[in-house]
Each structure stands twice: as structure tokens, then as C-alpha cells.
């Protein structure tokens, strides 16, 4: 097996051009499962850990740029969690400490599972996914990046370099239902982001569709339901959270599988969304407020 260890994005891109069948290795938390299970038998590997650019994050004005190689563990620390508490909440639900120390946000995007934990947050944040390839660099809106279950808009030879999201300017929530209390694949998950600067609400849904979904109607409803002028976002009417949950449930399109049923997923996604908005808009009484 050929292993290449590029140190720059350009080197990584040209390594891919030299070996089109090579697989990209970041944290390996998805790749090694596939290899060990015999689903994948790579003949060449491009290991990305030495690419310095991928491992960095920075604040660029009111934007946060997170390198594709940033691990879940790092999303919980440094200034990253303060700049994006929703990503931090999502990262905390991933696997065990060992997995969180290895797995990366770029890997979560590249695998593009409908259950990928950071993906609903990126949808809710309206993230741009930054890519590099043989034809140079480009960026795609998050919702154009995922095209189906485990399918992306990555062109041949292209790789993910970073995601760009707004720095938090309001409460962010991520809630996830699984069948146990940790180390579990999402049965349904919701991200709700309140953007005080833009007076907008973002919603992202996981495991209730072929790709992470937005819920634009629910998002617009919530933005209107929130009083942005008070000392923080509060709901004009408390019952608005219930209606919001109903709209989110209506935006989902879940399926039955061995992990749960479509009916339960629809119920859960509504309840989670309701609670996200309720708590995000009631920081004084909600003890979970960030």
C-alpha cells in the first residue's frame, strides 16, 4: 500500500491527481471501520494529518473558519466552543473520548451520513464548505454539498479544506435522540441557531431524510415568533415553540429502519425542536442555557 504524507493542501491535491484511487485518511474513524469490515480495500492512502492548514481554525471578522482536520475534541475546547456552541454540543454527542480525539469535521462532511452529528448544525448555520481540487478552490453552500446518503458534490480529485460559519451571536442548540445515552448513532437530531445580529433562525435536521435537512418554513416562523429587542431573544408567545415543533416535524421525511421507525423520528424531531426553541428563548429559567 502506498502512503503519501502531504504537508500542504496543494501537495494533497496533486497527490490525489497522481493516485486517483487513493483514499483520504484524516481521523480514520469511518475509514478504518470500512477497511476492517472488508468493505473497502484501499491500495493507496493520502494521510492528511501533516497538512497544517487543515488543522487550524480562525475567526475572520464575523465568520468562523474551521479547518477540515479539526477534531471533535477541539470543537469542545479553545475558543471554538465559544464561537460555535452548537458545533460543540454536536461534537460532544459523538462517540467516546477516543473517537472524539481522532474524528474530524471534514471527515463528518466527507462521509456525509444523514446521521452525521455536525451536519445539522452546519445546515442551521448556513455554512459554506470550502473545497480544493485540480481546478483550484471553491466553496459550496452546505445544502448543496450533501446530495444523498453518503453522497456529496465533491468533484473527482477534490477535497474538503474548511467550513465557514457565522460566529455565534445568540443561543445555539443541538439535541440528539439515540437508543442509549452516549456513543450512539442519531435516531433524530435537531440544530436550532438564533442569530441575534441578523435576527434570523436557522434549523438543521439529522437522520430524518436522505441528507441533513433545513426547515425553512419553521425557521421563518421562529424568526417572527422571537422578540429580538428584549435583553436576549424571547418568544412573543410561549406556545410558539409548540407550533415550531410541528413545523419542523412537517419538514422531516424520515424512514423506518432497524434503528427506529419513521413515526417515532417525526415525533422526536418535533419534540426536540420545540425544546430547542423553548430553551434558547428562555435563558433565565433554562438551566441548560449556554
Amino acid at each position, binding site marked *: 500500500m502506498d502512503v503519501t504524507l502531504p504537508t500542504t493542501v496543494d501537495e494533497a491535491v496533486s497527490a490525489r491527481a497522481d493516485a486517483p484511487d487513493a483514499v483520504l485518511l484524516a481521523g480514520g474513524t469511518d475509514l478504518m471501520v470500512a477497511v476492517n469490515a472488508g468493505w473497502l480495500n484501499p491500495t493507496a492512502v493520502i494521510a492528511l494529518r501533516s497538512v497544517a492548514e487543515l488543522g487550524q481554525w480562525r475567526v475572520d471578522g464575523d465568520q468562523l473558519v474551521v479547518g477540515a482536520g479539526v477534531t471533535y475534541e477541539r470543537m469542545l475546547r479553545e475558543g471554538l466552543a465559544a464561537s460555535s456552541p452548537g458545533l460543540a454540543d454536536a461534537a460532544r454527542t459523538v462517540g467516546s473520548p477516543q473517537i472524539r480525539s481522532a474524528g474530524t469535521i471534514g471527515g463528518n462532511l466527507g462521509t456525509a451520513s444523514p446521521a452525521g452529528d455536525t451536519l445539522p448544525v452546519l445546515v442551521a448555520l448556513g455554512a459554506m464548505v470550502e473545497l480544493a481540487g485540480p481546478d483550484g478552490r471553491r466553496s459550496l453552500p452546505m445544502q448543496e454539498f450533501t446530495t444523498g446518503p453518503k453522497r456529496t458534490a465533491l468533484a473527482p480529485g477534490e477535497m474538503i479544506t474548511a467550513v465557514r460559519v457565522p460566529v455565534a451571536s445568540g443561543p445555539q442548540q443541538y439535541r440528539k435522540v439515540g437508543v442509549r445515552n452516549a456513543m450512539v448513532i442519531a435516531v433524530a*437530531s435537531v440544530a436550532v441557531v438564533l442569530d441575534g445580529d441578523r435576527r434570523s433562525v436557522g434549523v438543521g435536521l439529522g437522520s430524518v431524510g436522505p441528507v441533513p435537512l433545513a426547515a425553512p418554513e419553521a425557521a421563518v416562523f421562529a424568526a417572527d415568533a422571537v422578540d429580538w429587542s428584549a435583553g436576549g431573544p424571547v418568544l412573543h408567545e410561549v406556545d410558539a415553540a409548540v407550533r415550531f415543533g410541528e413545523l419542523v416535524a412537517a419538514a422531516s421525511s424520515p424512514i423506518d429502519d432497524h434503528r427506529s421507525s419513521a413515526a417515532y423520528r417525526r415525533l422526536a424531531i418535533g419534540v426536540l425542536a420545540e425544546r430547542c426553541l423553548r430553551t434558547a428563548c428562555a435563558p433565565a429559567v433554562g438551566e441548560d442555557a449556554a
Partner: protein
Amino acid sequence: MTTVETGRVTTGAPPSGAVGASARRPDGGPKVRGEFSFSGDLWSDGMVWGATLRSPHASARIRAIDVSAALAIPGVITVVTADDVPGSKFYGLEHRDQPVFAWELVRYAGEPVAAVAADHPETARRALAAIEVDYELTEPVLDPEVALAGEPLHPDGNVFRELWVRKGDPDVRGEFVVEGTYELGMQDQAFMGPEAGLASPADDGGIDLVVSTQWLHNDRDQIAECLALAPEKVRLTLGGVGGAFGAREDVSLQIHASLLASVTGRPVKMVYSREESFLGHVHRHPGRLWMRHSADRDGKIVSYEARIVLDGGAYRSSSYHVVANAACFSAGPYNTPNAVVVGFGVRTNNPPCGAMRGFGAVQVCFAHEAQMDRLADAIGMDRIELRILNAMAPGDTLLTGQIITGALPVADVIRATAALPMPPAASSDPMARPGGAGRTTDATDVVRATGFAVGFKNLMYAEGYDDDSHAACRIEGGVVTITCAAAEVGQGFVTLCQQFGREILGVDDVVVAPADTSIGSAGSTSASRQTMMSGGAVEKACRLVRAQIVEQVAASSGADPDHLAFAEGRVVSVEGPVAVAVDLAELTAEHPYEAMARHQHRTTYPLDADGQGDAHVSMACAAHRAVVDVDPELGLVRVVQLATAQDVGKVLNPTAALGQIEGGIAQGVGLATMEEIILVDGKPRNPSFTDYLIPTALDMPEVAVEWIEVPEPDAPFGAKGIGEPPVISSTPAVVAAIRAATGRPLVRVPVRPTDIVGLTS
């Protein structure tokens, strides 16, 4: 306990490594540091890799098997099928009904069809893919009720056992009657270390096999039969075992690896992947149980009827005896004067089921404890009071008519459990709520409730089985060596051997020799039997050595043998005129002392046509109180605390005993809330730890424990086996608590979120 001062002895603190102390396990440090050698780490120069081809279909006729393409792959050394099995083509733990390799029919998804040996695991995997098996698919029979009435799936028929237990008057009824039907999904033992072994051809034409197992000698006999070898030419040594819980009682890769070693003339290593592990070992029987109880106004149980159907899957394994346990203990540890019970173990095209911790008692306890709650509610009585009122005690009779002669403090475990402190009020940590790390649930979304359950089962084998265990003890240069073939699977038997050696012979250095077949059988590490059976043999062997030394020291010193004690590496006199202080290292430096011992329990007898007879050796009971936090809107559960008092006879090692209780509770919580092999068309849909979920640290409750120490007659130091009771009544206690929190009937485990929110189809 004694300590020694100037050749005389005074009472003092117990030696740290002796009986009753939390002696450290010899394998503990290496396991924590990642240095312990598990059977998956085995290696031999020149070894090759074995792999198994398994049927993807639950039911099919094999038209042809073509291995030529596999043999043509460079690096493939051999491919074996049923044609290559020189001896018996069948094996089985208790009854040889399972083909080593299927050749005409496959009866479950995962059944072995062929095996390969190759120079590399990847080569072996490719070889498996290149074997062409021409299957003609047939309709699988997946419902045990259909199988009971249907065409035989095997020449032995579809009923592994139909056991009736009739006691008292079948027609009498009490004023209050409750009935219910209960179901359990298929639980897996989910041990961490997958099946692994290394088989090496020996110069004498035999096989040396190092393997993870629960019973070396039974494996040896099955391998010998299938390879047409004399048993003494098949020598087994226990590899490092990463958990068992019943799943290693049946042969998995033992015969395949030995056959490949025999055919290739080279050492063959086999290691199952996690997915193959799920296919390659038996599971806990799923069950459907109907029960009807009646009681009088005071709460005394008057009558009991039950019909228990356990799905044994395609082959018998231990179904025959699981059915016996399920039927015999189906009423729980309650005096039940009149009963009619029938238990069935049924063959289907589902994966084979067999031994798992609790062995039939788990399934019935889930049902009878739900019934006890219903009965108390129907009468309007306190649920715990009803249980105490009906609690069995020594002198009472089991459903089988057997009079309980050993310890069985049922009322004591109930009272002690109920008296344990309740957990603190809800934590402010959102991760400690239902949903855990998913932070689904705010404090206002939580309902807390409590449930209670009691369970019991027998210890050791039953129904006339002539069970025994062998052990040897040797002391040389002051170092004691214990030899016993008992399989250490994580339960702590090696620690116990050391404790017994220290306690009886007064030395610190006790070495436990590798377990192998060079000594007589120790029987299986199952049925909560090793502490009592092999512990009994080790105790006897140590006492024989002690007696030899006492005789020698008494003769040479003139001291009265009754005045001699063993402590701190010396034989000393504790009273009498003669002062003795003989150093055991010096005494045994040139003249070792050694002894062999065999231990048997008292005789048991078969059950008659009405399920009556003295079939069981000893009983053990426990009670569990579960406190759960439930998010009823999302159907999520966090088990907050399990409190338990357990009938243990005598605690030999508090840390080890606590480990058994916590581990059993983890498996009980798992069955209550998440653990199930999901079958679609008879095929496991979730054979991985991604989808077969077992409790994590965030799912594991706080555990509060009280030991109930009533010494068991004829048991070493009065100790009972303690591995199984923790897993029996913990599950129904958790489910009772979820019922109390939600008001839902919840008659099936595992309880899923869909059950709690009322979306189950």
C-alpha cells in the same frame, strides 16, 4: 484471621490476600495496562490463518459447493468442507445435532459451510468470496409456534424439550386472578474479546489448541470425535479470555481450526471479526410467556399456570436445560402450592440460542415479577409486602416438589433491598438525564419512578448430572502452585485460587498454573458453579497439603497437630507447651508437598413426568430496586440507581463480588432498555457494536449493595456462586419502574422509545 507474633499467634486484621479480603486479581494490572495477552494475540512461527464461510440464508438446500476458484488463489493452502471431516460430522454441547459444516441443508443464517487456511487474513477473506455455493432457497420457519406444529426442520424434530411441571391441585383458584403475556427479544452476551484460537499439529498426530472457552474438556471431546482422534491426543490450553457469559460454552472455531491444522500440518490461527462473533456463538433464548396467577384476599398465592415458549434456533445447544430452568423457576421464589406449567424449547431457522448468564431464569423472572405487581395491584396490597408474604424459605418446596435444604433468605433480601438508601434528587447535569450526551431532556421533562423485583435460580448443574471438578496443590520452596482446568473468563477464579492457597497454607506466593487438559476436568465456567465446584476442589487439595505438613511438623516437633497454625509463611503453634516456628520455604525447599482432589456436589435426580424430583443442588436469590428517570414525551430512560441485596452465602472477595453485581446489573439494564439482536428473515440485522447497543458509563446506574451472608452447607467457606442473580431481577425492576413512570403495560423487553411513547405497531 490470625497474625503471628514471636512464634505465638494473636487475633488481628485479615491478611490482605486471604479469604474475605479484596485480594487483587493477578490479571488486573496487565488488563488495565493493555498488556494482557488475549487469545486474539496468539502467534506462532509459520502459522497460517483460518476463516469460515457461512451461509447468508436462514434456510436453503445446498446443491453444490465448488472450491476450485478459492484453491487457485495464490496463498490459499486448503479449503475444507463436510467431506473433509474425518470423524463425526456433528457436534454439540450436550447433544451432537449440529453439522461441523453444512452439506445438504443450511438451517440458519451464519451456519458454517466451509473453512479455508491461507497465508494472510486478507487472502483467506478473498478465498471465502471465491467459494461458490449453489443454494436453493427454502422458506425459513421463524415463528416457534409455527415450528411446534410444522414439518421437522431436522431429523431430531422441532421440540428440544416439552417439560410439564404439575404441583398440587390443578383446579383450585383464589379470589383474585391476574394474567399476562410477556415477550423477550434475543439478547447477546456481547463479550469484548471475539472468538480466537491457535491450533497446532503435534508430532504424535494430535492437536494442541490454545483457545478462549468456558470448558476445555468438553471442547476437547467434541474436537476428538470430529477429528477421529483419541481424546488424549487433543490437548487444550486456555487462552486469554475476554468475557464469556455463556457464549463460549458451545464450540465455535475449535473444530474448524483443529481440522485446518490437521490438514495443512501447520499452526492455524482463527480470530472472528465482531460481525462473525455475532453469527458464531449462541444467544439468549427469546421467549413468549403466558402466566396466570391467583391469590386469596390476604395476598397468598393460590394457583399458578404458565406456558413458556423459548426459541432455541436451529440447533439444540443447551436448550434442553434452559427449558428446565425456565419451567422449574418460573413462579419465582414464592410459595406456590398449586401449579401447572409447560415449557417448550423449539427449533426454528433463527440463530441458535443457548447459555447466557441467568439461563432460563431471566426470561421467567421478567414475566413473574410483572405478575406479582399486577397481583398486588389487583388485591390492593403493597407490592413488596405481597412478595414478603409469599417468600420461600428453607423447608419450603419448589414447583418441582423439592424441599429447600440450603440457605435461601428470600424475605431477607427483599427487606434489605427495600431499606437501602434512595438516590439523591435529580442531578443538575443535563448529561445525567434521559438522553444523556444528546442533551435531549430538560429537568422539567423528567418523571422519576421506582420498581422492585425479586429473582432466584439454581446453582450448578441439575437433573442427575454427575458433576465434578479436579484440582492440584503443590508447595515447593514456600511457593504454592494451584492447578485446575477451570476457565478464568474474567470472573476472578484465579484470584480465588490464590486466596484459598493463602488462607489455608499461610503463604503469600500462590501461583495459578495455566488451565489445560493435562489435569481432570473442572467442568464449565457456568451455572454459577466454579466457586463452589472448582473452589471446592482447590480448597480440598490445599487442605490435603496442609494436613501432610501438619503431620510432618507435629512428628518432628512433638507438638499437638491441633495446636498448629499457618501464617506469614510459617507453621507456628498457637497453644500448648511446644513452641513451633517452622519456615515453610525451608521446609519445602527440597521436599515439595502436593495433593490432588476431586470435588462433587450432592446427588441430584431427574424430573419425572410431572416435573417432580430433587433435581437441583443449591439456590440463590436477590432483589433489585430500580429508580429511573423517564422522559415520557421522547420515550427515553436513564436508570438512576439499582439497589440490591443478594444471597451470597459468604463474601470471599468484596471487590470481586461487587464487580459481578455491577456487571450483572449492566447486562440486566441492557436487556431492559436496549439490547436485542434484530432479525429480519432470520438474519441478524445489527451484528456490530454500532447497532447492537450495550450500556455505556452514561447508561449505567449507581449501584447500592447489601450482602446477605447465610453460609451454604457443603460450599467452600459457605460461599455461593454469585454471577447470575444480578442479571435476573434487575431487568424486571427497571421495567417496573418505567411502567410506574409512564402508566404503559410494557410487556416486552427491551423497552424501546417507541413503546414508551405509544408508537409501537
